[in-house]
């Protein structure tokens, strides 16, 4: 379980995250969706959880299985992002972050090599690991990137770059996957597929996903749990059916007066 | 042992202002254009050589100073000559920018470095062609010092140093005024902050870049002229060490920051001059140690914000 405890982050006068406490992965393979209007503090929260930002206050904790059935708390508030990856915490970005001059295959390969702890290896060739290549092939298939596997990332259409970004995250075999708008900019027909893939993978590997999403249809269909942020605070937390039932929530979220 | 300390500090202030004048141009160009101009030191040397010709010609027209009044006239002529020398750098800078630098703004940084290095080499030989290979000294230093200044206060501080400090302050003041108060200055700042948005309100960034590069060249040249009318002389490789020291100054002060350049220059100047007499062996290392310390403690420099002139 991944836990945020009383997180607070301010930028100048702006309280981007204000006393946020949340738990993710309370059930195995849980899919949590974070929604909220622009500026609600969604991305800041993900940045705090993954170590891109350090909170002014509060802590980030993971609960880990210590092997004999009981769990131990491990505080990771000050841990560098790359160390959090070791703790199973992985993210993708709203603005695509991929290795622009590498091919799709190479991008995925780096991620998988990193996951396998091979990046310090200088004795083999980067493409010389059968196991890695099989995983990469699987990822390519899973994210429908086979056709563009040997294209250089910065020549790809936006949707494919987005898919690649998410695929890399999956290549890291995360326990907790934080996805910042994985479907933004993805072609509509592929949107379903991306989120379906995430859901399947989440199910299959018991990955807890925390996803920022604007598309309420997706949220409704896939969320196990919904977190609504508004002005830096947790505005609502609970079942996705809130989206249908909570008028105030609909107003905040959709800007729709009903 | 330390009774001379105030004098060393004063010497440091003078030296700092010299550094400031050179670094100011570099930091403006870097702040607005994002180009680290390795040829900046050659523009400085260019100014020194031009000053040799122009100031030499002008002072040839007036008599050597004999009393306070003629000394003042002499000083004024030298200053006007220095300004004229720096003004020669305006078209030089503008041409360099328009002809050579402009085509490669969208290229990788390293090619800009290589290009300005090539310009450095070519400028060196242009100077060699025009002024010859030997150092040249315009020889007005003594005449300048004939103007009584600090003697009035009982301090033995060469008038030239006073002039440099005063001119340095004027340069700083003018630059602050230019960037804070004039329309063009604020347009330049706007361009530095956001090139695209500047275009979207009608700024011709091409022209601004040309102007800024010309300005950078002007101040480099003015710094060179000030050195050349001082105790030093104009020589071909004179630009190397000031170039490297200017990097140090603008990094310490914060890239693109004018105030930073002034503070950085004074810091480097005073520290060097105070340390030198007691630990000669540190003279070369002081500025760099200072820079390492500042960068490790404050990676952004003392003032700086990237790409903004303030």
């Amino acid at each position, binding site marked *: 379980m991944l836990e945020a405890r009383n997180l607070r982050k301010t930028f100048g006068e702006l309280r981007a995250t204000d006393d946020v406490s949340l738990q993710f992965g309370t059930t195995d393979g849980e899919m949590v969706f974070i929604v909220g209007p622009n500026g609600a503090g969604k991305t800041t929260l993900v940045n705090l959880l993954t170590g891109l930002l350090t909170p002014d206050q509060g802590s980030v904790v993971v609960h880990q299985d210590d092997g004999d059935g009981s769990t131990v708390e491990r505080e990771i508030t000050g841990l560098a992002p790359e160390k959090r990856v070791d703790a199973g915490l992985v993210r993708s970005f709203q603005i695509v972050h991929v290795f622009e001059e590498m091919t799709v295959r190479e991008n995925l390969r780096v991620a998988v090599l990193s996951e396998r702890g091979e990046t310090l290896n200088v004795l083999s060739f980067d493409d010389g690991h059968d196991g890695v290549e099989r995983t990469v092939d699987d990822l390519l298939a899973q994210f429908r990137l086979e056709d563009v596997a040997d294209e250089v990332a910065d020549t790809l259409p936006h949707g494919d770059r987005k898919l690649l970004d998410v695929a890399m995250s999956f290549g890291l075999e995360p326990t907790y996957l934080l996805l910042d708008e994985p*479907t933004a900019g993805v072609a509509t027909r592929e949107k379903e597929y991306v989120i379906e893939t995430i859901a399947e993978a989440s199910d299959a590997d018991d990955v807890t996903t925390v996803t920022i999403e604007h598309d309420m249809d997706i949220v409704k269909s896939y969320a196990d749990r919904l977190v609504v942020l508004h002005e830096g605070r947790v505005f609502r937390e609970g079942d996705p059916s809130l989206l249908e039932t909570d008028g105030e929530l609909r107003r905040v979220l959709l800007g729709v007066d009903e | 042992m330390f009774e001379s300390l105030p004098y060393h500090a004063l010497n440091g202030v003078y030296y700092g202002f010299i550094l400031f004048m050179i670094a100011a141009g570099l930091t403006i160009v870097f702040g607005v254009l994002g180009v680290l101009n390795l040829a900046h030191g050659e523009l400085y040397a260019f100014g020194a050589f031009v000053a040799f010709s122009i100031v030499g010609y002008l002072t040839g027209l007036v008599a050597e100073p004999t009393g306070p009044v003629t000394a003042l006239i002499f000083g004024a002529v030298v200053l006007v000559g220095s300004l004229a020398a720096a003004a020669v750098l305006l078209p030089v800078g503008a041409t360099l920018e328009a002809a050579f630098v402009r085509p490669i703004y969208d290229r990788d940084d390293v090619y800009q470095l290589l290009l300005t290095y090539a310009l450095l080499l070519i400028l060196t030989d242009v100077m060699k062609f025009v002024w010859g290979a030997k150092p040249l000294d315009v020889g007005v230093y003594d005449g300048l010092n004939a103007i009584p200044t600090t003697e009035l206060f009982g301090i033995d501080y060469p008038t030239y140093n006073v002039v440099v400090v005063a001119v340095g302050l004027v340069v700083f003041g003018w630059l602050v005024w230019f960037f804070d108060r004039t329309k063009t200055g604020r347009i330049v700042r706007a361009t530095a902050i956001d090139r695209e948005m500047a275009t979207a309100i009608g700024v011709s960034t091409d022209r601004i870049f040309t102007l800024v590069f010309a300005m950078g060249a002007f101040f480099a040249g003015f710094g060179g002229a000030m050195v050349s009318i001082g105790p030093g002389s104009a020589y071909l490789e004179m630009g190397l060490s000031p170039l490297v020291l200017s990097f140090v100054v603008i990094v310490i002060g914060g890239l693109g920051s004018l105030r930073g350049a002034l503070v950085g220059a004074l810091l480097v100047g005073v520290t060097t001059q105070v340390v030198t007499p007691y630990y000669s062996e540190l003279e070369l290392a002081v500025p760099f140690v200072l820079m390492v310390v500042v960068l490790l403690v404050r990676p952004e420099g003392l003032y700086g914000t990237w790409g903004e002139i303030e």
Partner: protein
Amino acid sequence: MSDPLLEVSNLTATVAGFEVTHGIDLEVGEGEAVALVGRNGAGKTSTFRSIMGLTPIAGGSIRFDGEELTDLRSELIPKRGIGYQPEGRDLFTGMTVEENFRLPIWTAGDARGIDDEDAVVEDVFDLFTELENRRDAEVQNLSGGQGKMTAIGRALALQPDLLILDEPLEGLAPVVVENLKSYIREIIDRDISVLVAESNASHVPEIVDRMYVIERGEIVDSGDPDDLVQDEEIQLLMQGGGT
């Protein structure tokens, strides 16, 4: 109807060699307020940037006031009378609100025939009354709403014939949104043509006369905002559901 003020036809824009809009057609008439509505990433900003000459154009044409803009150097476009508020704010940080208003007059005032600089600036402050006492504040210290107003004000200071607003309401608190909407309506009342991008369709009917819907770089629909906002399919699209 006379010729439209702005006429974009068959516009294809590229970013890093990749097409981001495909054959966009849109028009803004003299004194008309038009919205371009679409989700994040649908191509609104790219279209606007193409008009401003900031994003390279692979094909098509942009005519403004009878003149072809596509061959024009980008800094001349504001001088022809197009004010632009970019997505985000892109204000000139380190400078005051007033300086941000004056800058466009200094650069393009002559071209726009502005004689009395101060009068124009005061005019903008008269519109955005709540900026009046923030006149000398440096723009990075403004609140979100004030920042947007400054960005719009800066575009207005050009005395433009056409004002392009890219998501002026985005990321603002509801109260501020209402406030800003009324300002925009006031601008429209001054007979300035407005082209505004929105990702939230619900605001649109209150502001504009006509709207285009953009999706994946193409205009998919256009018409009366009140009708379109009620349209099931458009709603679905805006919420990001499948077609």
